[in-house]
């Protein structure tokens, strides 16, 4: 992508006022959908996404069941009012692909073998999109899975890094995604040190690539803390009480 205008001003501020290694404000609410087994709401900058998890439950149609492990099903969907121009509510090819990469990003974290012949459904609904919705969706889905009490090896924390004005920046927003030089979303299992999603759009040399990956992982670690805090707040009130209980 060839950039037509500068997206970082002389003070090093980006279009939304952030510096290059700054995340947008991230807020996660846990258990906001009463009917679901687990749920989460994430505000990732201007992104607003709800995630509901149902399961483990019976698989329909039955022939889709696996005998040795659980089937993870994932739907990423954008509401028609979530974008500048109305989005057709039918699933687009982009949404089909994102549903797939999100499922594959979550699978290494879930102990699927604990629920043979069952299904876990993850529904991700983007109410408002502003760039980075797949990462925000993964962050919230991971919290919702934990909220549902699903056995997991680790959380999944996701965040993008990219190139804007030939600088490596953390957490690309919509404008930077459309006009900037490169966008690289990553999903990371912070305790196991494993990468479960990696995509790149745009041109990076080796140095930039390595710097992008390192930056994105740093961002994922920050997200991980926010995910932990959100879960602890629901289940233990606050972090201090948690520490007391552990003792």
């Amino acid at each position, binding site marked *: 992508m060839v950039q037509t205008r500068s997206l970082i001003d002389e003070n090093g501020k980006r279009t939304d006022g952030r510096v290059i290694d700054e995340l947008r404000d991230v807020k996660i609410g846990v258990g906001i959908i009463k009917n679901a087994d687990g749920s989460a709401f994430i505000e990732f900058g201007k992104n607003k996404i709800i995630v509901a998890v149902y399961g483990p439950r019976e698989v329909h149609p039955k022939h889709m069941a696996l005998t040795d492990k659980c089937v993870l099903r994932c739907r990423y969907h954008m509401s028609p009012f979530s974008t500048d121009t109305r989005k057709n509510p039918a699933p687009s090819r982009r949404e089909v692909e994102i549903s797939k990469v999100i499922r594959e990003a979550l699978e290494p974290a879930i102990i699927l073998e604990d629920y043979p012949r069952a299904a876990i459904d993850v529904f991700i609904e983007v109410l408002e999109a502003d760039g980075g919705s797949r990462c925000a969706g993964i962050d919230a889905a991971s919290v919702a899975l934990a909220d549902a009490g699903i056995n997991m090896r680790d959380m999944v924390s996701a965040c993008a890094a990219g190139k804007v004005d030939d600088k490596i920046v953390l957490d690309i927003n919509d404008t930077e995604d459309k006009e900037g030089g490169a966008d690289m979303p990553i999903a990371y299992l912070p305790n196991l040190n494993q990468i479960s999603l990696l*995509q*790149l759009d745009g041109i990076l040399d080796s140095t930039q690539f390595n710097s992008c990956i390192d930056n994105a*992982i740093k961002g994922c670690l920050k997200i991980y803390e926010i995910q932990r805090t959100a879960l602890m707040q629901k289940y233990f009130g606050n972090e201090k009480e948690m520490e007391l209980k552990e003792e």
Partner: protein
Amino acid sequence: MSSTRKSTLIIENLRKQQMKELIASGKRLDGRLFDESRSLNIQVGVIKKANGSAWVKLGNTEVVAGVKVETGEPFEGLENKGALIVSAEVLPTASPFIEPGPPDEETIELARVVDRGIRESEMIDLEKLALVPGKIVYVIFVDCSIINSDGNLFDATSYAAVAALLTAKIPIFEMKDGAVIDTGKTKEAPITTLPISITTVRLGESLLIDPTSEEEACMDSRITVTTNSDKFFTAIQKGSSGFFTLEQIKNATETAKVKGEELRRKFKEMINLGQ
């Protein structure tokens, strides 16, 4: 909705065991090295009615790609650029496990990853393909048909699409009295770089490039890395349910640079011979 799936190719446990043992001792079932591609054969200009075409054989995987050029409206936000659309279809001829019907998520991912590899590398200078900027532009369709499937469809399809574009003759359109006319003349496509994708899969601790479908049925995870002629990364896609460590990703991306460059040279020779 995306769902965990069984491998379509069922590999017997004995065969799987055999593969794992061999790989642990540094060998592959077909005797290749871990960083060795299968033989690649590219024939260009096989479809005369297409503006460009290529028939690619990567081992037993075969893909036919055809380029068709039309005129149409530009994409929103890209009013002064020609449009490039890469699609892929796995034909029912390709294996006993494929049924006709709308594309499944694997095929959609395949088409989108191949499209991204070409689009993001800016292989075609689309700014040179606007006829009436903002209104009428060249629309280049690259349609890829997988006719036999034996693993690594990502790379085989990408090679076919790139070879077809490299050798395409773009019809020259002109505006006359407000209508588009075909002058009957052709020109080369405005090529800026040669994107090459290299797919690596992880089986246990080992990383192998250019997997066969048997290897794909046993793999833990997959990563497709596209580099351009400057050896810059232009598109990456991790796929499949497993993970990669940071170290493995760095290995896979380095391999993609080295092997991509080797292939790029081979590619140029083959295309020149074909013409």
